């Protein structure tokens, strides 16, 4: 019987196989099935509303992946990630709307894809700028500098200066048809979904590959004990800044992607609340890339379910629907506290346990 693990007595013959993602046919089949479901199944069978929910999940997951890279893999606690997402979104928007693109790039629909990459790089560099204090401080002090990044970037630079050049007071409006990739105008939720799932898959692939190189191992070493890592010859400042760059890069991609889903861009899309939300997502999700994705699914679905419950309840207490935003805050706060107190290892640990149970069945000793 093929299993999830290699049977007893079989060994990997080289390092590449040992590090491979899909080590047995069962895992390979499972993962291909998953890809089929998200690429074909969901677009075919989900209706418009749930595709919109899936887009939200994808956006949250993209943001949470960057946070996971910083907190989960390098131990650099950040509470200002929304700032870098905002930088990505604004760079992309300004490039699309204001940059004098050559005619052929526009007609080929390359303006948006190129702006995504430039936005990602700009967000990465912005993130490095605010990562510089990490050379000297860590832990709580780093939290404060990333908080400062949030307030300086979003509440000051973007709100007071950048959004003024949008022409319409506070918001940049994105006329329909401006977001275009090749011949496709991204205008329906379904097209956004395809963009999202492609970007998310690519990001996960790049990140997972990065984590099993020298760079990824250096990050993990820094997370586990930075002084020990330094004595092993790892240049910790360089690797910390690299981590900030990659996390900012992913945040920039997330922001530039989210532009496709918006009709207008304003600083209110990236409040401090959103930074905290992303950290909460990975705390609920647990360790690893799958943790970030489980966390996003869980949090977005909880809000959806709450909204569904609020509809009938609001007929009795209309206050519930009016003040739903506050209820959402309360639910999120309680969820973080409950997970940290009762389930500190997050959803990915539960998932791992469930998998183990079935893999070892019926002899789960």
């Amino acid at each position, binding site marked *: 019987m093929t299993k999830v693990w290699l049977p007893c007595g079989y060994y990997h013959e080289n390092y590449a196989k040992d590090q491979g993602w899909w080590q047995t046919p069962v895992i390979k089949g499972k993962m291909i099935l998953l890809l089929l479901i998200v690429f074909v199944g969901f677009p075919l069978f989900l209706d418009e509303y749930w595709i919109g929910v899936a887009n939200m999940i994808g956006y949250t997951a993209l943001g949470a992946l960057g946070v996971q890279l910083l*907190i989960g893999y390098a131990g650099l*606690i950040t*509470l200002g990630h929304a700032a870098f997402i905002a930088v990505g979104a604004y760079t992309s928007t300004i490039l699309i709307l204001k940059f004098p693109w050559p005619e052929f790039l526009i007609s080929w629909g390359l303006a948006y894809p190129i702006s995504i990459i430039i936005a990602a790089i700009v967000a990465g560099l912005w993130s490095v700028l*605010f990562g*510089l*204090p990490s050379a*000297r*401080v860590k*832990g*709580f*002090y780093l*939290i*404060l*500098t990333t*908080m*400062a*990044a949030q*307030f*300086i970037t979003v*509440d*000051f630079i973007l*709100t*007071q*200066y950048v959004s003024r050049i949008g022409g319409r007071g506070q918001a940049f409006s994105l006329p329909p048809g401006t977001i275009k990739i090749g011949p496709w105008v991204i205008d329906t939720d379904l097209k956004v979904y395809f963009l999202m799932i492609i970007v998310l898959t690519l990001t996960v692939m790049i990140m997972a590959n990065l984590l099993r190189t020298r760079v990824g191992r250096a990050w993990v070493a820094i997370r586990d*004990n930075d*002084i*020990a890592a330094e*004595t092993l010859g790892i240049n910790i400042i360089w690797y910390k800044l690299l981590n900030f760059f990659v996390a900012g890069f992913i945040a920039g991609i997330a922001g530039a992607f989210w532009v496709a889903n918006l009709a207008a861009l304003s600083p209110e899309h990236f409040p401090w609340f959103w930074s*905290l939300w992303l*950290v*909460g997502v990975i*705390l609920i999700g647990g360790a690893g890339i799958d943790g970030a994705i489980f966390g996003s699914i869980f949090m977005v679905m909880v809000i959806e379910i709450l909204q569904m419950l609020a509809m009938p309840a609001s007929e009795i207490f209309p*206050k519930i629907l009016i*003040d739903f*935003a*506050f*209820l*959402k*805050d*309360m*639910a*999120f*706060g*309680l*969820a*973080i*506290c409950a997970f*940290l*107190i009762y389930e*500190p290892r997050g959803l990915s640990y539960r998932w791992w346990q469930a998998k183990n149970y079935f893999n070892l069945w019926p002899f789960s000793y």
Partner: protein
Amino acid sequence: MELFLMTFTTGIMVGGIYALVALGWVLIYKCSGVLNLAMGELTLIGAYVTIYFYLMGVPFILCILFTLIIGIMLGILVERIFLDKLIGEPILAVIMVTVGLSFFLKGLVGFVWGTDTRVFTPAIFSLKPFTIGFLKISTVYFWSFVLAIVLFLVFVAFFKYTRWGLSMQATADDETAALSLGVSARFVYAASWAIAFMAAGVGGALLGNINGVNITIGFLGLLVLPAVVLGGLNSIPGAIVGGLLIGVLQNLAGTYLDVYFPGGVKEIFPFAFMAVFLLFMPYGLWGWIKIERM
């Protein structure tokens, strides 16, 4: 020069309130090692509780008293429900529980009291400023400062001269030694949260007197973080000096930098200052310097 002095005194007066809230923060950190990001919401709750009683017609001093009592109850409740179980957990877990708490409290305040700005009517302090020499000082600021300083002194006296305060000092100094001398650590933790709630609550009530009570009081409460970083995380004199300095710097920035960077310099400057300050003096003015070894 006159403008400078006036900005400076206003800064000192507001800084007194920040110092009061910072005292609560430092106390929690010293006694239980919890880095609290929910301080803004504690001030928010204090402000709303006070104005709730005040609009019912209770005299202001009694309102402050009620806020203190409710602060004690909420502090003990919060500590017992949320933080008691997390003693000894990693720093991120404890910080994020306080973040979760801040979300919960903010949602609760918003749900119960809504988002409208409320004003203390009738005004408690006269709107007319009074003058000392050539300085014009707004009455609200002056009495807020006095009240903040009085409460501050009461808290400091509590630590110095009462048995409970001494046991809190002992725990902050060396927890193991304090435990061996029969100090109950759980009592100390609960007491530190209760005092933090009281200090932040009164701070919120005073801030609400100045600008009216709405959800942005929570942001003003966050300014306590630059203050404690400036003073050093575990130093009570640092909290005073940090609070006053942040108040002064904030008002000076609002007066002088606003010409060059129009917009919200006043709100942002403490955080920008803190980010730069951390690069050069990460342990603040009087914080303990931790030397890490493998």
